[in-house]
């Protein structure tokens, strides 16, 4: 139960009451990210120790264990089994997180940059600049970033349209659309607060007011959008990898594809290789969920009633 005073103050982080951005959802998301980060570092360590000298067996792309038939179920030598091409699934799993991280990083960074720039300019300038930016962001919401990434990505080679390009193009489109709409709405609520008047009276110029007084209040909102956008970017990239359109030949999406193709080919002859599909789909879902959890957790910490676009 919150008291009257507390609930009235809730949306405004003011002196004496700090917003805490750490809640169960954010912590869970960070824990998953740490897990994948450790896994990424574990790969070279394993190559140097347990898998030392057996690169031909454990290489994520070219590895092949000639001693057994493939795909093989999880065992002591292959912790998550092997794929239909004889690759070690654990090695693929530990390695596939890298390009996915890059996609999420590129998408999140560009979403934050685009939405902070446009959102703060629109709210500070108002007038025709605001009219144009808000109509543009409404229009870009209609253009699903994921569909555009498919249009750009399917049919292009990995050198031409790899993880970085997927992340950036997704991020710019998502940033122009939903992210700018949300950050602009948050910036409008900042503009009417008393300290803005004080900053103007103090003789602050436009750039000083925006960077010192507006942007700091928008960082959490941009972070929410960056995280939720990164969720979509991870899924978009995985779908491209699933259609073997982009990403390295052994991404998470490719693992799901491997499993589904094998079980369709061998329907009724051999049981489906669940370990490949689960490792791939689990990797995608866990990583996407990590970004989504951080985004949703931050948003709830900010104020759930501002979750949407308070027009």
């Amino acid at each position: 139960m919150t008291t009257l005073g507390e609930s009235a103050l809730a949306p405004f982080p003011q002196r004496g009451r700090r917003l805490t951005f750490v809640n169960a959802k954010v912590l869970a998301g960070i824990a998953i990210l740490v897990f994948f980060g450790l896994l990424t570092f574990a790969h070279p360590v394993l190559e140097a120790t347990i898998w030392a000298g057996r690169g031909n067996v454990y290489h994520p792309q070219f590895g092949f264990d000639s001693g057994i038939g493939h795909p093989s179920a999880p065992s002591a030598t292959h912790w998550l089994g092997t794929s239909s091409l004889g690759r070690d699934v654990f090695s693929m799993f530990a390695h596939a997180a890298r390009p996915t991280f890059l996609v999420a990083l590129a998408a999140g960074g560009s979403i934050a940059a685009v939405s902070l720039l446009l959102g703060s300019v629109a709210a500070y300038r108002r007038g025709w600049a605001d009219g144009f930016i808000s109509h543009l962001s409404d229009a870009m919401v209609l253009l699903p970033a994921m569909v555009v990434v498919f249009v750009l990505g399917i049919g292009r080679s990995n050198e031409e349209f790899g993880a970085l390009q997927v992340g950036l193009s997704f991020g710019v489109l998502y940033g122009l659309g939903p992210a700018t709409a949300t950050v602009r709405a948050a910036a409008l609520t900042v503009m009417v607060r008393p300290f803005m008047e004080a900053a103007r009276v103090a003789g602050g110029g436009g750039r000083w007011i925006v960077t010192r007084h507006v942007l700091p209040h928008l960082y959490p909102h941009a972070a929410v959008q960056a995280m939720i956008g990164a969720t979509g970017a991870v899924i978009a990239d995985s779908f491209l990898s699933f259609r073997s359109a982009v990403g390295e030949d052994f991404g998470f999406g490719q693992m799901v594809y491997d499993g589904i193709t094998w079980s369709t080919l061998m329907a009724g002859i051999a049981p489906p290789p669940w370990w490949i599909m689960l490792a791939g789909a689990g990797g995608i879902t866990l990583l996407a969920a990590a970004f989504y959890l951080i985004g949703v957790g931050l948003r709830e910490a900010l104020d759930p009633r501002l979750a949407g676009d308070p027009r």
Partner: protein
Amino acid sequence: MQVINAESVWRRPRVPWFVTFLALRLVWALITLFLFLTAVFFFMQVWVPYSWATQFLLGGPGAFEQAREAAGLTQPLHQQYADFMLGLARADLGTSFGGASVGDMILEALPITLTIFIAGTVIGWVVGEMLGRVGTWSSHRLSGLALSVLGVLSAAIFPPFLVYVLVRWLREPILDARQAMGLPSDSLELWRGAVIGEPGALTPGEVRWLIALAMVAALAVGLIVRAYGRRHQLAVVEALALPGTLLGAGVGIWLSGLGPHALDLLYRADISASTGRGTPALALVGIVLISFGQVMLVMRAGMEAERGEDYVLTGRAKGLTERAVRDRHVARNALAPVLAGSFLSFPTVLAGMMIVEYELEMQGLSSVLFDAIEFQDIPVIMGVIVVLGLMGVGFRLLTDLTIASLDPRQRHGRA
């Protein structure tokens, strides 16, 4: 700053609020659509035609130039832009590289997509709203955790894997049910007239449109009846509104004598494809599963934030039932951010729905789009993206109207 004078505040409006509201929103929609179409045009013209010439390599010398000529790509950019916009104003989406009219291709695919997307979104929405509302109000720690995990899973699941699981576990039971209903296993019997081109014969296209329109009408009526039931605390009306109207539409279609045809279409992706993996029923399940989570999470957060407000205490103190406090007061306040947020998450959910539809091999818009991407058929890609944008505008108008009907403060003022 807005100047408030007594006259403008107190003058009684002469027209119902939704007339001016809708008029303003339509103007908004036109401006937004114009910007959207311009963005699509420049995106496709400037960015995409990277190597689309390769498909003409087999056509012999000159084939590429001919195709450029035919597609109007040799004209200056502003001329192409004017042609594109004027064509759209006449509802002309151009001609695909394969020679077919893009408009016809889309019209053929649209009823399937409309049926499963609209039904999937509405059902996913209702499920998510209900779980968020009821689940949060009487939550134990454990059920709260379970709901959160479910919601995050729904938002983060990899659609192709979901489709694989659905096909593996649900396809056989659905096909068994089809046989149990006595439908012929070879549905060509039903569509013989259409296949051999008999004049006046019933075609799948017509029946698909009939199903789509009947279902949209049933959902609209169902949602209105449901809102009425909620408002007047008629629990039975509220619970039975949607299933009742959907069942009513089904019975209506059956009584009109088209029952077997409609049912047959609900069980297969395409009458010519006997190998299709999916059925509209499966696609519906998949779309509900990927769309309910986001709604539920935002609804939960809203309910949690509102339950500490003072009006809740007031409501209880004046003797309202817990249900009335929850549904008529708290949920009404918690719903606005859900609605506003649902438009912003529209692109992500839409892309997920398209992946589900495509992976289930439904002959809908996503098949048209992904095939066009495969063949670098630029006019078709543009056509589908334009239609997706139109669907988005319609969705925005509906959510805005719902927000305004929930919250009188939103009824006046600019878009």
